[in-house]
């Protein structure tokens, strides 16, 4: 499988199916599992023995043998119940460890796989979904082990063990319990099948109701301004009513839980069986007490088994969801053997197209950028201008055509070498919740404070960083330290300066509230352009105006290319931008020039 990140000596799990994956995780800690089964056997043996002891006490009471016999029985009872407690305690501890280790290991496995996935994968995943896998589904896994396995043990051992004891007293007495068990399995399966969909619908409906209300409240200003309060109330009422219907439906299904009735009837029949055996002198009163006690033990496992099944199912579903992510194919790999020379910063697009099955994002794009040039890309939202830049550092791979960096196809570059020379500053600048210094030095963790400050100065960030109480040690996102878009951008620029890339991709959509800040940002960007190739997606007319070249993109196509003056003459798109400034526009020369001609562009 292709991977962008690997960990040496990672434990290998079987990922061919959810069940095998769970099994291989459990197998890693097999001794915990086996030993806990032993503990549970011992616990149930003790518990059932206790019922027998109670029966023996009854025997002793009815036919006294010696003075101390009763005391001895009582002491045995204490010993047995201690044994029971200790066994179940140890067993639970073992399972607890197993469950939490499973959770830890699986989360680590998921994490490694997340790091190894390409950007394409991450773009398609919603953060919320991945978070749900990493938290709720991990809990689903550990819940399956504990208390899930305990319930399973309880159900299996708790049902089998008393049966064995009953059989040891009188085999005939197995009749009622066995018949009960068979019917019980069918009834419960049916019950769960009816109940689960209702619970799922109810949970979904709760989400719908919550999200709907949240939306109404977030948009309350427009609700009020449009006088649509009644409409929003109606929307909520419908959602709340639907939820109530599911809630009552669940209550109705749960109230008709038949096994409760069946168990009561079986209890009566069991007693009848005992009494008739007593009449035939085949069973003593003491034995009846013991048998009824043993059958009473069933009450718990019989009811707990419902939960154990749903916990198992839940865990299995969690495993399936986690595996879907882990097993998702990633389209790029490290390409460790690829070309890894120095990078100069020459970029060539040769008839590049990119798209998904449902439509093309970019179509037949060709251009050439010399090392050190600054190129501004202009286009409406959704025109494909961001995607265009993302093909350069192989965030995505083109679906047709070639992209050459220094004359070498990006797919032949060593991914590490390629990316380490290309820096990208996103539209939503992401900063880690660490200190400002650590953020600036993110790509070069060993950089000295001096170098960090140098980079910050060049990015016009030094001044405002010092204005914070803790300066460079200010932790981002903590206690009211919020950075404006312009400040975040300058920190990102400093981060890029420190790693000194040959190609800088700058998606600049910050807005300066005031002219002074605008001056600072302009200076920082100007500095960034020195000595490297820059691809600039910007809203700043001044940056566009002074770029070496401007590419105008419209609905995935390159519709115009050239300098400011050239485009003012040739491109209606470009002229429209400047039309609202009362600038005197030159006459448009020819409609024909609007169509991009690659022959002009190739040097």
């Amino acid at each position, binding site marked *: 499988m292709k991977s962008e*990140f690997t960990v040496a000596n990672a434990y290998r799990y079987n990922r061919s199916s959810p069940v095998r994956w769970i099994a291989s995780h459990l197998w890693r800690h097999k001794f915990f599992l086996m030993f806990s089964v032993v503990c549970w056997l011992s616990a149930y043996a003790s518990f059932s023995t206790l019922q027998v002891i109670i029966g023996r006490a009854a025997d002793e009471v009815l036919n006294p043998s010696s003075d101390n016999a009763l005391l001895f029985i009582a002491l045995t009872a204490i010993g047995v119940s201690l044994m029971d407690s200790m066994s179940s305690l140890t067993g639970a501890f073992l399972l607890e460890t197993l469950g939490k280790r499973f959770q830890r290991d699986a989360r680590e496995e998921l994490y490694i796989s997340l790091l190894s996935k390409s950007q394409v994968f991450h773009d398609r995943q919603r953060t919320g979904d991945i978070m749900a896998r990493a938290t709720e589904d991990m809990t689903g896994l550990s819940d399956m082990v504990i208390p899930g396995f305990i319930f399973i043990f309880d159900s299996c051992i708790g049902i089998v063990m008393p049966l064995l004891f009953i059989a040891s007293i009188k085999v005939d007495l197995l009749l009622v319990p066995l018949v009960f068990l068979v019917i019980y399995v069918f009834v419960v399966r049916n019950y769960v099948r009816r109940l689960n969909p209702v619970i799922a619908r109810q949970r979904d409906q709760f989400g719908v109701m919550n999200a709907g209300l949240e939306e109404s409240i977030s948009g309350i200003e427009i609700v009020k301004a449009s006088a649509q309060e009644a409409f929003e109330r109606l929307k909520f009422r419908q959602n709340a009513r639907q939820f109530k219907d599911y809630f009552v439906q669940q209550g109705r299904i749960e109230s008709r839980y038949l096994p409760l009735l069946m168990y009561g009837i079986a209890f009566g029949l069991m007693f009848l069986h005992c009494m008739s055996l007593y009449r035939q002198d085949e069973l003593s009163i003491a034995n009846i007490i013991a048998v009824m006690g043993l059958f009473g033990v069933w009450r718990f496992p019989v009811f707990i088994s419902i939960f154990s099944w749903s916990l198992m199912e839940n865990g299995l579903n969690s495993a399936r969801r986690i595996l879907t992510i882990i097993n998702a194919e990633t389209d790029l790999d490290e390409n460790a053997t690829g070309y890894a020379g120095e990078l100069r910063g020459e970029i060539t697009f040769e008839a590049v197209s990119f798209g998904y099955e449902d439509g093309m994002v970019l179509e037949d794009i060709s251009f050439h950028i010399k090392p050190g040039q600054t190129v501004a890309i202009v286009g409406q939202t959704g025109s494909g201008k961001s995607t265009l830049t993302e093909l350069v550092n192989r965030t995505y791979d083109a679906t047709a055509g070639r992209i050459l960096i220094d004359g070498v196809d990006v797919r032949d570059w060593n991914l590490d070498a390629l990316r380490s020379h290309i820096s990208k500053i*996103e539209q939503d600048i992401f900063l880690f919740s660490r200190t400002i210094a650590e953020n600036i030095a993110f790509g070069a963790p060993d950089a000295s404070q001096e170098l960090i400050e140098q980079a910050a100065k060049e990015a016009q960030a030094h001044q405002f960083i010092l204005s914070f109480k803790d300066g460079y040690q200010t932790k981002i996102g903590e206690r009211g330290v919020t950075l404006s878009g312009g400040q975040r951008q300058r920190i990102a620029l400093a981060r890029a300066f420190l790693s000194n890339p040959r190609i800088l991709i700058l998606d600049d959509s910050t807005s300066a509230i005031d002219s002074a800040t605008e001056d600072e940002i302009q200076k920082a960007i100007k500095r960034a352009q020195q000595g490297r190739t820059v691809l600039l997606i910007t809203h700043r007319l001044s940056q566009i105006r002074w770029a070496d070249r401007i590419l105008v993109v419209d609905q995935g196509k390159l519709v115009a290319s050239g300098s400011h003056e050239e485009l003012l003459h040739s491109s209606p798109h470009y002229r429209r931008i400047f039309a609202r400034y009362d600038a005197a526009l030159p006459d448009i020369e020819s409609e024909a020039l609007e169509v991009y001609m690659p022959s002009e562009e190739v040097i």
Partner: protein
Amino acid sequence: MGFFMDGLDAEAYDRQYSDRELVKRIVSYFRPQLPRMVIVATAVVLTAGVDVLLPIIISRSLDTLQNDPASANLLLITSLITVVASLSWVFNMLRQWLSAEAVGNVVLNLREDAVDAITERDLSFYDTFPSGKIVSRVTSDTAAFAQVVVLTIDLMSRILLVGFLLIYLATVSTKLTLVLVTISPFVMGAALGFRKIARDWVTQSRRVLAEVSNHIQETVSGIGVAKTFRQESTIYDEFLDVNNRSYKINLRTGFTFSSIFPILNVIIGFGTAGLLYVGGKTVLSGSLSAGDWYLFIQGMALFWFPLTSIASFWSQFQLGLAAGERVFAIMDAENKVVQTANHVLDQVRGDIRFEHVDFWYNENETVLKNFSLHIQTGETLALVGHTGSGKSSITKLIARFYEFQGGKILVDGHDIRTLSLTDYRRFLGIVSQTPFLFDGTVMDNIRYGSPEATEQEAERAAQAVGGGDWIKSLPQGLHTAVGERGSSLSMGQRQLVALARVLLQNPSIFILDEATASIDPLTETLIQEGLDTVMDNRTSIVVAHRLSTIKNADRIIVLREGEIIEEGSHEDLLAQGGHYAELYNTYFRHQSLEYIEASGELIA
């Protein structure tokens, strides 16, 4: 175990209800459910009675069987047990079914009332309280409150069960009952002590889970940066650290939870042994029958579980009441905007007059003081000034989102306080800085304010904004889904949708709080063209952040600390060299063509 930690964060609208008030309020919601509740309560008592009956029947039968085997009617005994078990099932069914209905109805009524109440609140309420908290009061707190019913019934049934058992057992043998009672405090004590420890551990577990979540969330959001800088292994090491810490703390919490039942079992084991011994001796001495003795052993099992759970129920019960109190508090929060009459206007021309208006959000910060302004029908008015100068407040008062403290606001000569708000606001078109879109299509959103408009009319409005060029860039045109809060559209596109929405509504007064976010130059051009269409022949009040807007305005009002200090046209004001000139140099200069042209030499 969620109930351990449910937050009890207090808000300003929270109030302390007296017990009497609270009970009255609660009763009003439960009264319609009274028949159901009575049946449920009866069923609870009967279930408890029947459950106690079962061991008694068995013990009596054993006595008969032992002393006089011939007289025992086996079938009778069996049918008795079967009937008792069936009855127990029937009562239980009634209890679950009817209480689900009762709870469902109470929650629904409570939710509906809560939402009715909060949609009546004015905007100062929403400014003060985060939407997440309001939502959780309406959806989660109501559910928690309804649990009070279930809990009350459960608690009752358990106390009854324990009570019945004790009374019956005491009539049989006081001595054995005393043994049983002696052990009880230990069991309860252990259960309570465990709760205390568990609460601390659970808090720590939650905290560490939050840490893990944060780390992963940050990794996933910042994966692009991590990949660009090839720092995957650094953050992987950090993850290992957090993940291991979480493992250790979770394990400790798990151990605590796992140990409770074994510990309780040991105590109960001692109890059983004690009863075996003391009971056995008593039977031997002849003052107790074997059947009664059996009853005691069985009684213990029935006895312990309710005892341990009563402890935890109590705190859940309190939490439920507290949740109820929170729901009532949000319903009872008072509105600041109060209308004195309900006049419906046929037509609004858009003549707005502020007369000596005083306004503040809170008493320490006066926003407008003795403020007067006359906006004429059809005028385009630009408001400029530093943050906090009162620009937005003026527009919010016109929309009657907030109450003002002094003076008068007149719309077409009518006191704004006498108007029917629902009716008046139909004449207003408002576009805020970050336009809010509802989940649905672009078309749905354009029609939001005028649901009676046809699709064709909506399409015409959309085409009128920026020549309709923006629609082409939407993947499915006007039927493109906008996503949650419009997230699949760019900020610029959201503004275009909002403009189309206003245009369709055809309001008499247009209020625009201009976006400060930057928008790509092409979309920006479309927005500007759209604004020209919307503002044409309409009273327009704009909180201006765009140079082109102020240049196009009929009149610019320059505000400082809630006062008008200059007014006039762009050229005149700039020539005056006053506060406006200063504002221009601070906020607008960089948007000018001169700046753009000069920026080539700016750095070098």
